[in-house]
């Protein structure tokens, strides 16, 4: 019995002193001092001892119990104090040690979001060439030979031998040339979003010679103006916010008939044209901002791609990536050329 008590004491103390965890400490206490604990059981066994041993062993048993309890309490105190001082000696306002984080260009961010929005309604992303035979951005899109957009003060021409059928080589001024490539594949139905670089001979605060457009094209049986409005409204609400609405107005493009100009309600005055203080909203025109052009694909364009306009109709739209990007709240850049300045202080804001 004496030995058992000694062993229990030594084991308990050893375990208590080697633990760093208060939960584990509690488990040790239960193991020895709990209802079925080692020491508790030993104390119960005292009854069966011979009469003359009882007082001595009894005293030893109690001593052992007390030592274990004291050791336990001391250890518990120490662990609690350690925990507190650990957190107390830390200045949590010190900067964190961060893993690297770079920056994707604003245009990439816009393109990714635009793609994700259209992917969701069944559109596939494409990227058609920037350098084209003149036939693709103009002739196939129903532009007559002498149309102003084909003048060499609007479009960039490449020094290259012209093709007898397809004309000179140009930098495409609009992603609409992608419509022709897509339709020539001959796979209908079409749900395409062509996002690519375009080039125009213009450079000022709201134009850069190189820019990006996203061109949507839907060709199928019985595509209507209602579908065009639905798709564009869905995009605008997804990209700019649910409260925004669109309207379409009559306009004129060579490659669509009917043609529309698409406006979005102003984000600042919410389409009212006036601010709450009764002042005229400075950002918009009577509550609306121009987004870009759209229309029902002109039958001549369908025919140029060997698609029967009696069987199929389609709609298309072509908008500036930079333009919709600048409509996002917080991105009111006053000079568009900043986007392509590659000033790191600018790029690393985003």
């Amino acid at each position, binding site marked *: 019995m004496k030995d058992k008590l000694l062993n229990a004491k030594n084991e308990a103390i050893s375990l208590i002193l080697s633990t760093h965890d208060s939960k584990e400490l509690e488990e040790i206490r239960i193991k020895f001092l709990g209802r079925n604990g080692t020491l508790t059981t030993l104390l119960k066994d005292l009854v069966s001892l011979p009469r003359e041993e009882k007082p001595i062993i009894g005293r030893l048993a109690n001593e052992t119990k007390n030592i274990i309890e004291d050791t336990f309490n001391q250890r518990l105190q120490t662990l609690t104090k350690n925990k507190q001082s650990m957190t107390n000696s830390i200045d949590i306002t010190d900067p964190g040690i961060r893993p690297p984080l770079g920056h994707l260009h604003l245009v990439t961010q816009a393109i990714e979001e635009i793609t994700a929005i259209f992917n969701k309604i069944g559109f596939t992303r494409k990227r058609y060439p920037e*350098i084209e035979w003149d036939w693709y951005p103009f002739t196939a899109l129903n532009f007559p030979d002498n149309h102003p957009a084909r003048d060499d003060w609007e479009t*960039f021409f*490449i020094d290259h031998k012209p093709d007898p059928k397809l004309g000179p080589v140009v930098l495409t001024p609009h992603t609409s040339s992608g419509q022709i490539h897509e339709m020539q594949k001959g796979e209908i139905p079409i749900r395409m979003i062509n996002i690519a670089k375009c080039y125009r001979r213009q450079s000022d605060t709201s134009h850069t010679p190189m820019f990006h457009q996203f061109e949507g094209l839907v060709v199928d049986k019985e595509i209507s*103006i209602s579908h065009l409005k639905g798709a564009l409204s869905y995009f605008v609400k997804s990209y700019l916010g649910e409260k925004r609405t669109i309207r379409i107005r*009559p*306009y004129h493009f060579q490659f669509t008939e009917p043609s529309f100009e698409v406006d979005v309600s102003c984000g600042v005055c919410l389409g009212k044209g006036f601010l709450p203080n009764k002042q005229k909203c400075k950002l918009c025109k009577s509550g609306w901002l121009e987004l870009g052009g759209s229309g029902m694909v002109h039958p001549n364009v369908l025919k140029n791609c060997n698609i029967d306009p009696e069987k199929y109709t389609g709609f298309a739209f072509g908008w500036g990536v930079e333009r919709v990007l600048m409509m996002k709240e917080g991105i009111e850049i006053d000079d568009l050329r900043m*986007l392509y300045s590659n000033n790191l202080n600018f790029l690393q804001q985003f």
Partner: protein
Amino acid sequence: MNIKILDSWLRVYLSTKATPEQIAKHLSLCSVSVESLEKTKITDSKSTDYIYDIEITTNRPDLMSLTGLAREASAALNQNNINAKYTFTTPPKPSTQSNSKTKITIHNDSSLVNRVCAVAMEVQVKPSPPMIQKRLESTDIRSLNNLIDITNYVMRTIGHPTHIFDLDRLDTSTLTIRESKTGEKIKTLDKKTYTLPGGDIVAVNDKNEIIDLLGIMGLENSVITDQTKKILFFIDSNDPTKIRKTSMSLALRSEAAVLNEKGPDPETAIDALFYGIELFKKFANAKIISPIVDIYPNKTKTKTISVSEEKINSVIGIPIPLKKSETILKNLGFTASIHKNTITAGPPSFRSKDIEIPEDLIEEIARIYGYHNIPNSLPPTPQTAITDYDHDPFIWEKKTKDALKYWGFTETYTYSLVSRDIINQSPKFVIDSSLQNSKLSPPRLQNPLSSDYTYMRTSLTPSLLKVIKENPDRDEFKLFEIAFVYHDNPNKLPSQNLHLALAIQQKKFTLFHLKGILEQLCQDLGISDLNLIKENESINIYLEKNMLGFIQTHDTNIFTLELNFENLIKHATNKKTYKSLPKYPPIIEDLCLIVPHDIATGDIISTIQKQNPLVVSVSLLDKYKNTRTFHINYQSYHKNLTDSEVGDIRAKILQTLSKKFNTRLK
């Protein structure tokens, strides 16, 4: 093109109770865009008038006029349940004396000018009455005197430019219309001299001297002065293409030129003549002194177009009753009739160029009906839609860009158009396999905007180096760009290939950090078999046996990498293979070898791996002076390897390495 219209002047031809706001709104929604509506006190300082600033699309020159806009407004307002009436009536043919004193013979070339309407009159020059002056001012035209003002007033009302000559100063019995020859000189009425490029439409007198640049601007030799007593009132309907060419090459963008290059309706030329005569009589005491000339050999033809109710409804998306379509078209000046389920309509002459196919009719019907009355519906997802995640190049691009972003890189978008300098700095060798045998040259712009942007670039690296130069306040750079580079192709279209380029300047960044980035990227894209090989002065990147790109080291510790991204991702894959976990533990050991300096680590590693299939991985753990430590993993999937089995393999490894590379164990 834009036009400013005074509300009170518009209402001379538009009878309605609609407010200016309502007119602006319905015009914008159904017809042309009213960009602004401003209050003005221009007509009378006591009452308020309004000015509409309207954008007219190039296909609607008929709307560069009060009459055209009044007609459109009437159709739009009526459709929206606001009563409106278009009240213009064509002026009657004026009577002329039979014994006209003046005879001037006009010789026309109908290939240049489709219609000539003219008459000679005796007149009195004086200031225009206030109403005329104010109306012209409201539409941004300066008032000069009654004669010139009337020509502009008529243009604004009817939509066809008009011209007057001082008849006495013309001093000729004939007026011949011909093409100019290159080099002929003219002096315009604002006293500027121009040399004609040739092929311009001009009018000459008896002496073959040019007396007018038709449709663009009058000349000094026949311009109206304060002494003018007789005028030749002249209206020419000319070839729009020639007008544009002349106007643009001389940079003479007069109101008349801008309108004439859009092709106003020749039918309105005679209305302009008769209305002008009315005004000259009223405001210039005019007396007609010649017969009225009207040379009009090729009258405008219009055709009728038919479209079915089914087609109309299918394109618009909702059913529109044919009766409604008929009303709309008639209100716009069309003839229209319904037969069974089809409507047949004929456009008015001023829409003849613009209305040719059934879709043109559908546009007229839909826009007046109101696009805001058409509901929104999403186009249905096609039945054949399949997503091929593993072969979508855009997904690989996004993955690459995200990886670089999370490794601390900033993405740049530099211009594809570059200067000669940048081209000279571009690497001369080809990393686009399709071009291996062709002469490498950049496509060149014929009409660049500036010398900074003359060529299409053949490499991204110089552009990234330029970004570093242009950010002098920084000393650390981690940049990337994915963009196209271009190569001229004499017999085909210039090609474009997608490249990836990196540029790094950072403390403690070495070539092996760059190699690590490339290796890690390939791992994430599922690409193996990428090698770097030192060739001459450069470090080239090879994928399988093909050159993919190159690494360069520049002054001031800048590293750049450029590779053909299209070709890289052709080998990318998401395919993952599961290998069951080994049941038996591996044996791992480090072999410390003395290796001659000229032996490549890669060669040692590949040799070790070849010695036995139980060698599952070998890597360089450490390199110090001539000692290299290799970390080797032996693993069997079938049994526990014994020390003696491993010992045999190790012996073979050491023997082979010693023989091949002259290594020895340390």
